[in-house]
């Protein structure tokens, strides 16, 4: 919760974004990192932070990737990538694992996204392409289940269009569920109650001015310094 800062050099790399997300995770928190970009956050949690990682395929106390010789095909994360077991870990079945998520016991969930709206709506499971093979996994459960759901994504699409939008145009994952968006160019608060005027609010900018951000997104933003 650093407040608005002045531009500081260039846009963030993926690892810098992950470190920025990690810096906001309270010591001792129970955290779920979505597949893709958010898994990088695990590498930036300081030792001794006491953060416990949940993976929705049925484990608390997940550790980093194993050495190649220690890969166990029965010890994987939700992205089906081999992981390790830390002291104090526990295993549970899918209904218990999602009860943990859906019952509001996970402090922070970090998800990737295709689009997030200023109201905190999330679209991260379908590109809407007519010939796409659908897949949703745990996205909808994660989006609405955690105490705090945040998104980690690039601010813009490959084509340069905004991913933080007034209204999501892609199929929704959840309504008003995201409270903060961490991007390569800015950190912004979104969702109900973050701004009296219903805008997204700039928390921090990276190599870009407030006006430039508004220009890139085509949105009026709160938090101007």
């Amino acid at each position: 919760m650093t407040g608005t800062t002045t531009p500081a050099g260039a846009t963030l790399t993926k690892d810098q974004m992950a470190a920025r997300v990690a810096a906001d995770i309270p010591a001792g928190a129970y955290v779920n990192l979505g597949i893709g970009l958010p898994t990088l956050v695990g590498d930036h949690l300081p030792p001794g932070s006491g953060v416990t990682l949940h993976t929705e395929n049925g484990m608390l106390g997940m550790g980093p990737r194993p050495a190649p010789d220690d890969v166990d095909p029965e010890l994987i994360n939700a992205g089906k990538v081999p992981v390790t077991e830390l002291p104090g870990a526990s295993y549970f079945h899918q209904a218990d694992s999602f009860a943990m998520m859906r019952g509001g016991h996970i402090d922070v969930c970090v998800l990737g996204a295709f689009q997030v709206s200023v109201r905190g709506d999330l679209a991260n499971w379908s590109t809407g392409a007519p010939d796409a093979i659908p897949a949703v996994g745990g996205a909808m459960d994660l989006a609405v289940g955690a105490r705090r759901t945040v998104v980690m994504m690039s601010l813009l699409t490959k084509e340069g269009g905004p991913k933080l939008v007034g209204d999501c145009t892609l199929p929704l994952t959840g309504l008003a569920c995201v409270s903060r968006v961490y991007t390569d160019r800015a950190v912004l608060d979104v969702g109900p109650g973050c701004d009296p005027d219903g805008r997204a609010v700039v928390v921090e900018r990276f190599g870009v001015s407030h006006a430039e951000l508004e220009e890139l997104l085509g949105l009026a933003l709160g938090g101007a310094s």
Partner: protein
Amino acid sequence: MTRVAASALEALGEVPDGATVMIGGFGPAGQPVELVEALLAHGATGLVVVSNNAGNGDDALARLVRDGRVRRIVCSFPRQVDSWHFDAAYRAGRIELELVPQGNLAERIRAAGAGIGAFFTPTGYGTPLAEGKETRVLDGVPMVLETPIRADVALVKAHRADAAGNLVYRRTARNFGPVMATAARRTVAQVREVVPAGALDPEAVVTPGIYVEAVVALDGGTAIAGVGA
């Protein structure tokens, strides 16, 4: 009483055409590979499959789909880098898909096993996957009414069984096995080892034998790091 079968096919038993079959596993972990191979060999067709994924590469579930023996699949994540057979069948309209959020899949299966007629959950509210479903605001939270998912047969993979049918699992291979075992008329479990009744710690049993119709010990083939005798 649980049968201890001598082969995967004997454990599988009779599966009628049109049956609903649950298949455990999340990705490769917990997939009852040999039991699905047995289902392939058995010949049942017109199946409804309930499974987190829809087959990888040329695995047995993928071949069931390829061969047109799966009429409908209830699934949270069919798309995989190598889900060619599902992708082709789906694009050709040869398979019906019910896409279910993973937590709803687990909870709806549990509901079937626990005698719950229906339940309200926030998951999926306002999204295309809840379209047409009954909704209600409870304690200020908009929710969707979801119904149980049952099966005729559940195929699961566990680590060890005892002669009473009690099962223990291993690491994240536990995933859907324990809930699916409760939701099927018959549950068949493949395990690495069947031990005598009393050889599993009663405090550590994950699936009590009451849920298990048959077990079969198969060496499995996949080398598992750190697993001794």
